[in-house]
């Protein structure tokens, strides 16, 4: 306890606080610009920390990570482009809210939910990191496969309009994820000699295409003249979520916070998957599950709490084992090493001031972005009053720049355009495009770990059901598929009882 207190005092040095605030702000900027992922932001800042002390340097990067996780939601809500992969599920309800004229509420809720999720994640990191680290050791290839299958079942609940069309989109997405070099057998699949395809389709241009370009094409076609919204009454109160809405989401905050942390802890799962899973679970347990996807505030709350909690979780394997679970934490690992520290079992013993200092700085970073988020709701909501031809042109420019930035490849702009047109045509024919994204993210997990499990266990297919965690996850998956068919009956039953 004394160590934590000391670390707390260390944070309140001018240098460290400055690093923290600057890091969080830069994180928000990087987060909300599509094409600049949190990992790129942290990598860009890394060389700047060489001249700083270890605590300031790592604080700068860790708070940037927190800020970026939140920042992704801003562009997801305002323009329907997730600033990073983790905010993909935020678009599902955040952007419809903007279309309904509730952008302010969505932004406010995103800031609050990100804050609550982030705090839950950091508190768990502070108190239970060693327990959770042991939990990750239970996850072998079989367990990751089953987790991936569980994640894929979200496709079913996303395809309420037409199950067949949803499944087609989902499987198409998984199929897209097989493009490129196969990590298990080493062969090149569907690359046809194109070098740009060998590392697979990059996730970012695909989501920019499917989400942003397709919806702009829709608006262009319909000669869209701007979101309906009352921009005259921009009083603070009306912009922010009401007390009743906060109460409605209270259990969602908690569920997403816990679930998001847990998924974030698993190396290789990360913010995107935890955002989707939290969204789906919120939908399942909500009394208003049919409102999800139409611009419902609980959907934003669930995703943002989930993906921000995941960033706390992702620090667990890094700090306890020295094992990075994601691209961003891999760079943070590098930062520790550059500053002469080795994250791992001995970090908390050898340099507790830095270890706890970093955790506490993440804690405080959450307050910084909450303040920023709440204060910026008004100017951001005003942005929407910009005439549509300017707004959409700006979005198109940011989209083509963002797609290029991710790998500095013109190829990715073409990829973005392809998926933009595909998404546009699919939406016109009542296909949902989100399952493609889900398939693309989860496809490699399902495919690679299925085969790794078979190699590890000598071709024994029964391991997926004989290993307890794997079996439980598969059972959840089965339940999740069956839920949309069972739940109306349960509801009928309860009504029947009341009557």
């Amino acid at each position, binding site marked *: 306890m004394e160590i934590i207190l000391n670390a707390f005092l260390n944070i309140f040095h001018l240098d460290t606080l400055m690093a923290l605030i600057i890091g969080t702000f830069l994180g928000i*900027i990087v987060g909300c610009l599509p094409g600049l992922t949190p990992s790129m932001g942290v990598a860009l800042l890394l060389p700047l920390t060489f001249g700083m002390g270890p605590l300031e340097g790592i604080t700068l990067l860790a708070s940037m990570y927190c800020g970026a996780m939140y920042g992704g939601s801003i562009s997801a809500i305002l323009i329907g482009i997730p600033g990073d992969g983790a905010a993909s599920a935020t678009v599902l309800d955040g952007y419809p809210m903007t279309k309904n004229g509730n952008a302010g509420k969505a932004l406010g809720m995103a800031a609050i939910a990100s804050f609550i999720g982030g705090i839950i994640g950091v508190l768990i990191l502070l108190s239970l990191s060693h327990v959770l680290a042991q939990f990750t050791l239970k996850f072998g290839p079989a367990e990751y496969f089953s987790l991936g299958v569980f994640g894929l079942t979200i496709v079913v609940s996303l395809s309420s309009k037409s199950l067949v069309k949803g499944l*087609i989109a989902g*499987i198409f997405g998984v199929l897209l994820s097989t493009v490129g070099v*196969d990590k298990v*057998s080493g062969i090149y*699949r569907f690359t046809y000699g194109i070098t740009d395809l060998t590392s697979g389709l990059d996730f970012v241009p695909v989501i920019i295409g499917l989400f942003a370009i397709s919806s702009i094409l829709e608006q262009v076609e319909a*000669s869209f003249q701007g979101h309906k919204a009352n921009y005259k009454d921009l009083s603070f109160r009306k912009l922010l979520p009401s007390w009743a809405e906060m109460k409605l989401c209270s259990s969602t905050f908690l569920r997403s916070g816990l679930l998001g942390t847990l998924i974030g802890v698993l190396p290789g799962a990360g913010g995107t998957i935890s955002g989707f899973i939290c969204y789906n679970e919120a939908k399942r347990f909500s009394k208003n599950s049919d409102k999800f996807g139409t611009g419902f505030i609980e959907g934003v709350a669930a995703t943002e709490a989930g993906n921000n909690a995941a960033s706390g979780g992702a620090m667990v394997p890094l700090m306890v084992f020295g094992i990075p679970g994601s691209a961003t934490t891999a760079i943070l690992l590098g930062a520790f090493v550059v500053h002469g520290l080795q994250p791992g079992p001995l970090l908390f013993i050898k340099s507790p001031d830095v270890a706890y200092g970093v955790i506490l700085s993440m804690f405080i970073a959450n307050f910084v972005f909450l303040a920023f988020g709440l204060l910026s709701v008004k100017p951001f909501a005003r942005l929407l009053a910009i005439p*549509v*031809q300017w707004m959409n042109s700006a979005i198109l420019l940011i989209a*083509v720049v963002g797609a290029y930035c991710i790998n500095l490849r013109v190829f990715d702009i073409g990829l973005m355009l392809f998926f933009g047109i595909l998404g546009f045509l699919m939406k016109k024919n009542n296909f949902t495009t989100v399952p493609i994204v889900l398939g693309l993210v989860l496809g490699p997990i399902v495919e690679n770990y299925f085969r790794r499990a078979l190699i590890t266990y000598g071709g024994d297919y029964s391991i997926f059901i004989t290993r307890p965690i794997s079996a439980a996850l598969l059972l959840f998956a089965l339940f999740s598929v069956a839920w949309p068919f069972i739940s109306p009956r349960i509801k009928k039953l309860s009504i029947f009882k009341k009557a």
Partner: protein
Amino acid sequence: MGIRFSKNMAWGIIFLLFSGFVLSESLSLPYRPDAEIAIRGGFFPTILSSLLIILNIILIFQKNKDSDKEKTVSRKAIIRVSSIVGGIIAYIILLPVLGFIVSAFLFVVLCVRTLGEQSWKKASLFAFLMVIAVYVVFHIFLNVRFPVGILGF
């Protein structure tokens, strides 16, 4: 009337052709001689494309629940959409040749005009400001290297 050709059928057939192609490609993927079927690189693509084939056959024969109201798309709308798409294609081709600043400027002018702005002056001014803003944020602050064209910038 017999079979009415619905949109779903069109989609089903397109996807069917696509998955048939993927299936035949998956079956011909190379593998190591000693690898079991399930761990070969072609295993998942084969299964996935087969599933797609089944689902698309269902889609083709499924009763169309969506009211297939043909919303007539005006010619103007088609021109608008295709000029945005064409603009992105032109941007992709121009980017390595003219460099970022010029191609992005032309691209934004085209977008603003297509989306309904009448005045050339306003469109150019807006495009200029946007491109400069993006250039400053991405290139100068964040060190992203944009393609430099034959004009030297």
